[in-house]
């Protein structure tokens, strides 16, 4: 499960909803060039996004966080960690596929090794044996693979309940919902247990949320514009995941121009000609 997506798996089967959202993004592409700041943030649907964000916050405060707190209080640390390891292990087949699609064969090999070791010695994935041996879990999904292939992320989206996304990431998520082997097993003949992917998504979402209760509350409390902060965090994190860890994971130094422009009149005048044009990206 990737970061912000709450109940991510659950949505995967809600294709109607997804199609509506994707349709919505497609329509919005034409509006993208309207205003300068919309280009900067690439958030042409900001007004709608903010309303959905507020809705998500309402649900988060009144339902998700209370459940996450109860979950955290009810189960001891090791149990929750085992559950997280188990859920991560279920992700490994798709992580492997994405590693391979990206041509990251070393990572694909690590993922394969993790899956075999944790599924056997790690008792079906409840113990992250491979992690203890120095091969930690790494995240991959189809949105990241598309990004690695050069597909642009598209405009920022806030999806009801699931939170921050982009057409690329949401599309990847939907496709993975169909491609997930476990979902296919439990919903195919003879099982047809359609509720299981939803439960998996729900548990994963609650577990993830339970790990960030204080952190997110604090960021919300101290932010001047929580929506804008989350938007930036989501984008940066996805971009960093696509970059993997080539050397250091520091964003390019765009805009760090103060060495030459310590407020001397000439540089101020020069940068006033094209303020932010170069430095914004």
């Amino acid at each position, binding site marked *: 499960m990737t970061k912000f997506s709450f109940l991510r798996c659950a949505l995967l089967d809600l294709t109607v909803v997804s199609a509506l959202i994707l349709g919505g993004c497609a329509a919005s592409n034409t509006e993208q060039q309207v205003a300068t700041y919309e280009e900067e943030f690439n958030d042409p649907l900001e007004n709608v996004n903010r309303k959905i964000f507020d809705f998500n916050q309402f649900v988060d405060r009144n339902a998700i966080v209370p459940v996450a707190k109860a979950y955290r209080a009810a189960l001891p640390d090791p149990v929750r960690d085992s559950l997280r390891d188990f859920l991560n292990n279920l992700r490994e087949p798709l992580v492997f596929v994405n590693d391979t699609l990206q041509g990251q064969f070393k990572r694909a090999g690590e993922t394969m090794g993790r899956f075999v070791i944790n599924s056997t010695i790690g008792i079906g994935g409840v113990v992250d044996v491979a992690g203890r*041996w120095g091969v930690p879990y790494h995240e991959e999904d189809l949105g990241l693979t598309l990004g690695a292939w050069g597909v642009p992320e598209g405009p920022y989206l806030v999806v009801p309940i699931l939170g921050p996304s982009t057409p690329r990431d949401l599309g990847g998520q939907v496709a993975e919902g169909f491609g997930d082997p476990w979902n296919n097993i439990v919903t195919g003949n003879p099982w047809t247990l359609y509720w299981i992917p939803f439960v998996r998504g729900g548990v994963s979402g609650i577990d993830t949320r339970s790990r960030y209760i204080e952190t997110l509350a604090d960021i919300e409390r101290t932010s001047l514009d929580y929506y804008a902060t989350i938007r930036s965090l989501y984008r940066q994190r996805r971009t960093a995941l696509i970059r993997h860890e080539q050397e250091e994971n520091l964003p390019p130094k765009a805009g760090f121009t103060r060495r030459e422009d310590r407020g001397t009149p000439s540089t101020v005048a020069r*940068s006033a000609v094209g303020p932010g044009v170069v430095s914004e990206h």
Partner: protein
Amino acid sequence: MLRRSVLTAAFAILVGVLAPALPAAAAADPAAMISTLGSRALEVLGKGATQAQRTERFRELLREDFDVPGIARFVLGRYWNTATEEQRAEYVKLFEDYIAMAYATRLAEYTGETFKVTGSRPDADGAIVSSQIVRPGGAAPVKVDWRLTGRNGVYKISDVAVDGISMAVTQRSEFASVIQHNGGQVQGLITMLRQKTSGNGAR
């Protein structure tokens, strides 16, 4: 993951800021400077400290080791040019207050983890130092990268990125949004910063 990153981003900044600065070491070697910062921070980080103590300690370290005016200016981006001298001066002061307030409150969660510097390389303006926060239970370590600007042999931190999330970029994006929702006026940001840092806004 993103939430984890948010958490750890806060941590990285806090680690850097909390530790007592050692200017002599800093001047000689950026890697040693960050190493000292990180290790000392883990000692200093205690749940015992009060909120006010953390904020104050934090502010001192911001001043010691971070290029606060430079970061403040970067974060304001193109709006720096439209701000008056008075606005700039007030903004830089409020920025320091705001960072001290916002990041100091995220301190208490980060005790008992191991910090280590993994690499350092020269960069156009100074150096980039890579480090890791090693976590228990086989989880992937958190990557923390520091951008340092060197001037006359003295290094100051100009950005910190945790798992690829940059504090300066995040703050810049947020402030730009605030300004644009205030009709493009820097004064709108200044007013909000005043409210947030005055105590009642921070709640």
